[in-house]
């Protein structure tokens, strides 16, 4: 029995399992390397559980169908890579303003443009924050192992349902394509959050009501609450408005329903930081190299620690400032030309030296590269 739950599985497929575990029933997508196995996995698995898989004509249609399905009441998601993620930006903005829960997995490959389609990268990190036009607060998470692909997918669905907002899972090609041993949790083992539905009578319910936690209960279509959804800036009824006293609260809500709950959303892995003088800060596959490098360097007596970001957005500023308080230096490792390092420069006090180790040739960061950088900055 114990064996039955263990499997050797690709990260991409672990995301599918995590989504199904979360109660996801709807996938719409368009194939793209290196995310395609997620679509393929859904096309195989969803019919078996009475769910729905549809291959759309493009990524714009995919995210549109996912939003439609979510508004209809189903937990829904899609998966893509850089080029498709770029195409989804307009409708992602629609999901933000309409407060539609959904999950997008971006299995990152080298960019810009078609770039390095089969090679690893983390160069869509900032796009996950700033991709769509307009103002909104974004949530993005980044797993680093096959097991974490499962848990972070469950977490992503939970966050999206909890906060009525789209959530991006930033995978990178190495995480998506590597196979690892995963133990699939039993039902109930992990928390699964479902969106809050309205309970008052239809006449009393305002679909975009200002609640204490700023998340409005959300009925599905056909559940007795007829409501209007629009991408125009709208009031609590969902009707478009040009009134300052309705626009400000709406946009503040998009921000604050998330930023007020950073503590719930932030998640980090902290290793060997108690006495660390230098810290590696990284996420995704680079964290695996950083953990390895930390272990190796500690063996050699170097006081180095390792901080892995599972939550990328909202950026865990407070936590980082705390954890790094006693460091004199940090090394930010990324598979790009410098993205999250901008945030680190912004939030860490000026007296902490910030060093970058960046790789962007489509290959994974190695522990050795980080160790060499460490020696260099020591």
């Amino acid at each position: 029995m114990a064996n039955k739950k263990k499997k050797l599985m690709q990260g991409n497929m672990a995301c599918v399992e995590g989504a199904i575990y979360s109660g996801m029933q709807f996938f719409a997508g368009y194939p793209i390397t290196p995310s395609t196995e997620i679509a393929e996995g859904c096309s195989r698995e969803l019919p078996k559980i009475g769910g729905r898989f549809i291959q759309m004509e493009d990524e714009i249609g995919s995210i549109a169908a996912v939003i439609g399905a979510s508004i209809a009441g189903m937990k829904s998601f899609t998966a893509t890579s850089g080029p498709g993620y770029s195409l989804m930006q307009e409708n992602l903005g629609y999901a933000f303003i309409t407060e539609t829960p959904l999950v997008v997995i971006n299995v990152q490959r080298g960019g810009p443009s078609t770039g390095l389609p089969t090679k690893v990268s983390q160069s869509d990190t900032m796009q996950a924050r700033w991709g769509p036009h307009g103002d909104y607060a974004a949530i993005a998470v980044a797993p680093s192992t096959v097991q974490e692909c499962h848990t972070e997918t469950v977490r992503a669905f939970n966050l999206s349902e909890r906060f009525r907002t789209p959530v991006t899972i930033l995978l990178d090609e190495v995480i998506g394509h590597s196979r690892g041993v995963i133990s699939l949790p039993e039902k109930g083992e992990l928390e699964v959050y479902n969106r809050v539905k309205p309970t008052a009578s239809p006449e009393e319910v305002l679909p975009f009501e200002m609640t204490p936690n700023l998340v409005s209960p959300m009925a599905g279509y056909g559940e007795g609450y007829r409501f209007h959804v629009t991408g125009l800036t709208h009031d609590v009824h969902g009707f478009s408005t040009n009134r300052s006293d309705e626009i400000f609260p709406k946009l503040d809500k998009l921000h604050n329903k998330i930023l007020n709950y950073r503590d719930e959303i932030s998640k980090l892995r902290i290793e060997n930081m108690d006495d660390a003088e230098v810290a590696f800060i990284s996420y995704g596959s680079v964290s695996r190299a950083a953990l390895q490098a930390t272990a190796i360097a500690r063996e050699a007596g170097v006081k180095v620690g390792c901080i892995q970001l599972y939550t990328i957005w909202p950026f865990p500023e407070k936590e980082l400032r705390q954890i790094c308080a006693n460091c004199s230096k940090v090394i930010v490792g990324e598979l790009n030309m410098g993205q999250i390092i901008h945030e680190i420069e912004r939030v860490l006090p000026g007296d902490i030296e910030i060093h970058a180790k960046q790789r962007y040739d489509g290959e994974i960061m190695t522990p050795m590269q980080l160790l060499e950088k460490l020696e260099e900055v020591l």
Partner: protein
Amino acid sequence: MATVTKQKSDVVLDYLRPGKKFPSVWCPGCGNGIVMGALIRAIDKLGWDRDNIAMVSGIGCSSRLPIYLDVHTLHSTHGRALPFATGIKFAKPGMKVIVVTGDGDALAIGGNHFIHACRRNIDITAILINNNIYGMTGGQGSPTTPAEKISTTTPFGNVEKQFDPCQLAIGAGASYVARTTVYHTPHMEKMLLAALEHKGFSLVEAVSNCHTYFGRLNRQGDAVAMLNLFKENSVMKGKASKMTDEELKGKWVLGTLHEHEATEFCDEYQKLVDAQMSKRG
């Protein structure tokens, strides 16, 4: 003239959304309102539970239509009404899903979704309000602006050719295609009724007036004048089949232009689900 409908005149009022400000944002005389009336009467005839109706639109004057109706409504992004609607329909196949779209929304930016909805034969009725122009943004040319006509982006006359939305839909595989105009309201009701009852993807092209832009720029006069143009320049399909191409030039051929039986997407998928689930046990 067409037959008198049996519809009560105030049935429309019964479907208007409580809490939404009236009258509409549309210009006086805009055909969008005429289509809205016909659509409501058709829905009412079918006796559908309005809690079971989802109406989806894109962006444009025409796409404002669903907002006024007391059903589930989704005013989506420009050109994307059909994939949004596909998501709703596929998630809840029991719902009646109607898309309201404009010539720009459906055929310019939304052209890809349009042909794929036709191909997929998903059970959605799309009502394309074709006013031959972009009304909402102030009168630019659309893919149905006829050659030589003036718009704010074809100030010297349009050098492009226009789509025939119905032919495009047929070429893409749609299983029900009809055309009507805002002048021919009883006919419009009939076409809408047939489309809504059709199982699979159905398209009704509703030729409509944007006198504010298309009419003004092309000296076609006000709403009344444009409706009369629709009257004069329309031929019913039956009659049209006896006319030459030459005679049909510049005319709107009205009626059910195409219809064929075909399996529906959600049904087919459900069969697959049933097969897989029964396999599983």
